[in-house]
């Protein structure tokens, strides 16, 4: 009886999930379909002028796309080496007090709400303005640094998992060949865990691209045009969605929100789908 009831409950929940998610995706796509064209991204400006930055694009998503890409890439560049290094360290030198502390810190950081990174960036600017550089202001660089803190634990933990899942037999063979610790890491463990590390990089790309709370507090604004320098304010896709959905005045502006949401959803969903495939492959024992 209990088993029957449970089975029924499982069916009901699954149907609800499929219907709800299908409904949401259908709604978003159907609402944004009329707007999905060149004008959504470039407005009235000629495409090449917009891409080369000659003419400023008004009321369209091109600056936001560029902003999202640049902030994400800069965040990745900042976080990449330290993140992977931390992962290697945690996987290969696990038995010291420093490593235990580091592991705990990374875990805590992974569980920290993203708005706290935004708060941290905000405080940093207040602090810098008062004590060191009075001209410091919210900017692309600040957002990217805060996003870098946000994605650091993802990079570290995927690298650690990838290196720890290298089979024991391979480790033993490296000992038998007389390799020292660094030869082992450089010639065997790292090449072997490339796929895992790659999936970590893609995962953090997606996380950085979708996060709104951090960039909202550290420099994304509604109409800044293309980001002119590292110290300028910029536009970003998630912030445009938030802004236009709250403050739209015409149908067109709401259409921008829908268009931006479908664009962003495609971007992150593709990233995560590829990540999932690569991750599965890297975990399966038969890959090579």
């Amino acid at each position, binding site marked *: 009886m209990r*088993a029957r009831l449970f*089975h029924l409950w*499982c069916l009901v*929940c*699954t149907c*609800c*999930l*499929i219907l*709800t*998610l299908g*409904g*949401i995706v259908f*709604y*978003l796509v159907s609402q944004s379909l009329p707007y999905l064209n060149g004008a959504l991204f470039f407005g009235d400006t000629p495409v090449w002028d917009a891409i080369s930055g000659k003419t400023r694009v008004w009321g369209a998503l091109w600056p936001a796309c560029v902003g999202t890409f640049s902030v994400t890439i800069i965040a990745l560049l900042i976080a990449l080496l*330290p993140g992977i*290094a*931390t992962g290697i360290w945690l996987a*290969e*030198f696990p*038995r010291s007090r420093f490593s235990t*502390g*580091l592991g705990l810190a990374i*875990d*805590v*950081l*992974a*569980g920290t*709400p*993203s708005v*706290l*990174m*935004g*708060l*941290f960036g*905000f*405080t940093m600017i207040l602090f810098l303005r008062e004590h060191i550089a009075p001209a410091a202001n919210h900017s692309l660089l600040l957002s990217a640094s805060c996003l870098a*803190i946000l994605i650091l634990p993802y990079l*570290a*933990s995927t690298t650690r998992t990838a290196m720890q899942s290298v089979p024991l037999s391979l*480790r033993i063979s490296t*000992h038998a060949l007389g390799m*020292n*610790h660094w030869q082992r890491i*450089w010639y065997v463990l790292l090449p072997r865990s490339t796929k895992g590390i790659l999936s970590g990089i893609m*995962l953090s790309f997606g996380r950085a*691209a*979708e*996060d709104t*709370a951090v960039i909202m*507090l550290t420099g994304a604004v509604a109409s800044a045009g293309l980001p002119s320098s590292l110290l300028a304010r910029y536009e970003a896709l*998630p912030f445009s*969605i938030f802004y236009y*959905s709250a403050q739209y005045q015409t149908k067109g502006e709401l259409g921008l929100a829908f268009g931006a*949401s479908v664009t*962003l*959803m495609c971007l*992150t*969903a593709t990233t*995560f*789908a590829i990540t999932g495939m690569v991750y599965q492959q890297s975990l399966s024992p038969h890959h090579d």
Partner: protein
Amino acid sequence: MQETDSILPAASRIPHLCLLGLVIPVFVLIALLFGFLFWFSLPVFYSGGNSIFSGEWQPEQGHFGIIPMIKGSMLLAVLTLCLSFPAAVGISGFCLLHPKHRITSLVHGMVRFMTGIPTVVYGLAALMLLVPLLRTWFTQSSGFGLLACLLALSLLTLPVMIMILENQLRESLNQHQLTGTSLGMSRSEILTHIIIPCAPQAFASAIVLGFGRAVGDTMLPLMLAGNAPQNPESLFDSIRTLTAHIGLVLSTEHGSATYNSLFASGFMLLAISVSLTVITRKLERSYQRRHPQASSSAQP
């Protein structure tokens, strides 16, 4: 591996130092992050502790109480879990009961897709679909409030809970399936009578992770909950959470009088997330002790 650690030859000392040079800044940065938040919230506890931890939020009169926000966050997270945890158990149960079914692979794909949907997109969908719906169904409310936020958040917390439940329950299902089948039990009987009663730890992990997601999310409460700092009394009341409070105050007000309450909220959030992380680590350890072969690394 340990012998080589202690007597590093000279040639391998350089990469060691390089690695250490990258790792130590990370550690310092994390320490700086927590130190900063702690340091800035310290004055709050020294001086006006009473006014911060009071139930009143009236900046014009100098009352900066964050108790309504703490209550809002907690209430929202608990109610979200009440809805999404049973659903997550049901969905992961379906995937375990029909492991080869076409719908199961569809559900897997959907769960993976859901982790990729940005929070703000859920917010937009709920803003345009759910809020008008609630407004027409329950005419006394504006649509914004606890209920709208709770429904959207439960969708957000689902994937992580489904993933962890399915991973951990499948492990014990594989262990006990042969025994159960030989006793003449069907797959669903094995699941309800053996696996689920024996896996309180898997449920605890799912609840803790889901709670963390629900407490830590900023955009959904900001867009859907109405953001009035008050004590919620019904499902339709507008609430303000800690995360939304930080976002709201930072993006609208530019006086430093209210900043203290920000750091107090940040500190509360940090305390919640640190304790959740510690619990998660404990649970993970006990899981690994029980299943030494299993890789408990669910993808974040």
